[in-house]
């Protein structure tokens, strides 16, 4: 890893007095009327609210976009349509009862959400998950990464207008993994599987073999996927050079996950924090050079292959043994007063939980660091100067889930 240069200059505060508005008269398509003395240049600006009920905002999300022709000159994201104050709910509930709510943060990757939360509580209490539980966590976590990335590529192509064909292929494979999750935890998406100091239940008979088969078949799907997409000229011209995010801005803006690595920063918590048992596995961190939409797409495809290699190793070497720390207590947990910040490399980026305990049975402060939200910090920087069509794919390449953005 190279040392990073100076962070970029921040946004200047908008100069005061620059107010413009659209013509009130709805019968005309005249552009903004100008209140300032000098007058605007002879340009028609169009203000469009992309969302919240727009087909490609991945849920209920809004971007207030100002367009000059089709070129974006301003873009402000508007959040909160899915806000349910999960943090407050968790502060009113017991430590255990927060786990099923974490499923619903990033509702595509419930396993990693569970994992980040129980890891934080383990830091707070000092529970030590046994070996087998750690293996199971790594396996389900990497399976989650597999289908999250596959679906993201599908959604991205959907945003590019590919009529859902890649998405359907991704969903076909995702279904196999969700089947594994269902036979393991009882639910396909809202797994609620991890527990403090371990996992809830042991692997059912034959699960390892099924998982091995899924993992063995996955590369064929990836090859097909790449044959369908990676060389496609339309995808290349649509995504290369679009939404470029510089290394410096990415670091300073706290961008994490595949998006950061597409900008060329090799920061992966599995390597940096060495949490769980990741140091035992052999895998690499793919890096992009350009930081554009295409790099973000490619990084995800390459990460899927690395995940497959971790999965192969983990499935081959998983030991027998207990699945929960015998010291661990689930119900009525009262950690000593203190605080802990735990973070894992979730598929979308760095997912962090910050829990403050005051010794009572419910957390005093429960905070989620949502990668989706913080990765959106640079959305406007990436979109300025591009067209609406690019905004849509740039947003798609960020990989957000609104359950996590709004919490």
């Amino acid at each position, binding site marked *: 890893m190279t040392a990073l240069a100076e962070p970029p200059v921040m*946004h*200047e505060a*908008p*100069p*005061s*007095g*620059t*107010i*413009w508005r659209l*013509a009130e*008269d709805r*019968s*005309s*398509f*005249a*552009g903004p009327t100008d209140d300032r003395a000098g007058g*605007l*240049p002879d*340009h028609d*600006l169009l203000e469009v609210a992309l969302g919240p009920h727009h087909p490609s905002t991945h849920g209920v999300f809004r971007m207030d976009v*100002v367009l*000059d022709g089709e070129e974006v*000159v*301003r873009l402000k994201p508007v959040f909160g349509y899915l806000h349910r104050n999960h943090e407050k709910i968790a502060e009113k509930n017991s430590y255990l009862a927060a786990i099923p709510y974490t499923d619903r943060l990033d509702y595509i990757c419930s396993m990693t959400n569970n994992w980040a939360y129980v890891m934080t509580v383990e830091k707070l209490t000092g529970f030590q998950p046994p070996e087998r539980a750690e293996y199971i966590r790594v396996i389900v976590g990497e399976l989650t990464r597999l289908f999250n990335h596959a679906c993201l590529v599908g959604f991205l192509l959907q945003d590019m207008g590919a009529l859902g064909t890649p998405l359907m292929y991704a969903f076909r494979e995702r279904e196999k993994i969700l089947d594994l999750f269902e036979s393991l935890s009882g639910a396909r998406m809202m797994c609620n599987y991890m527990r403090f100091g371990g996992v809830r239940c042991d692997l059912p008979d034959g699960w390892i073999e099924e998982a091995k088969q899924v993992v063995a078949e996955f590369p064929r799907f990836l090859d097909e996927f790449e044959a369908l997409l990676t060389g496609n000229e339309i995808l290349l011209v649509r995504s290369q050079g679009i939404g470029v995010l510089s290394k410096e801005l990415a670091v300073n803006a706290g961008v994490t996950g595949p998006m950061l690595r597409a900008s060329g920063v090799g920061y992966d918590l599995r390597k940096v924090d060495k949490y769980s048992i990741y140091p035992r596995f052999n895998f690499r961190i793919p890096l992009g050079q350009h930081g554009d939409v295409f790099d973000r797409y490619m990084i995800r495809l390459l990460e899927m292959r690395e995940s497959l290699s971790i999965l192969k190793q983990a499935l081959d070497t998983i030991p027998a043994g207990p699945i929960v720390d015998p010291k661990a207590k689930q119900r009525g947990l009262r950690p000593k007063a203190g605080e802990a910040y735990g973070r894992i490399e979730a598929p979308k980026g760095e997912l962090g939980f910050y829990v403050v305990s005051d010794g009572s049975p419910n957390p005093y402060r429960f905070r989620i660091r949502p990668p989706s939200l913080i990765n959106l910090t640079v959305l406007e920087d990436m979109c*300025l*100067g591009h067209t609406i069509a690019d905004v849509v794919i740039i947003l798609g390449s960020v990989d957000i889930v609104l359950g996590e953005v709004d919490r």
Partner: protein
Amino acid sequence: MPNNISFYIFAVGVLATATAAMRLRNPVHCALAAAAAFAGLAVIYFQLDAEFISFAQLLIYVGAISILVIFAVLLTRGSDIQPGVELASPHWLTGLAIAVLVAFVIAVPVCSSSFGEKIAPKMTVAPVKLIGEELMTRYLFPLETMGLLLTVALIGAAVIALREPEESEIRNPKSEIRKQPTTEELVAEVQP
């Protein structure tokens, strides 16, 4: 007989839409009415067995010119005529004089032609092939001249459109960002 009836229908239609093109308030409506008038003319040409002219009229006037007119209307913000503004210009007398003059200029050749005489309708179908041959032999020079003129006009338009904006005209998007409410305003709002 059916031809006659349809001729009158279309003639009235053309006149009506042409009038509408002059009289309507919204310039976009005017442009659309003009397009309708062009289409009606094309039908009349067709009835006169002037196939080629008819199709050319449709292709060029309806398909291209009217779209051009509409774009021009939209781009020049001509569409926001305030209600209450007189449609007729104060120079209507000049306009009338010009109209009379034009009518005269057209009337003279028409009246001097054999238009009034009843002659047996002759099959005057001008096959496309004939038109093409005439254009390529007898009228070659005028055709090429016109083609050259149009090309020059096209290139000129492209050059004008391509003109690089001057430094002062390049807008800094950030300078146009709508003013955000300041912290104080927001604090004043949220604090009871």
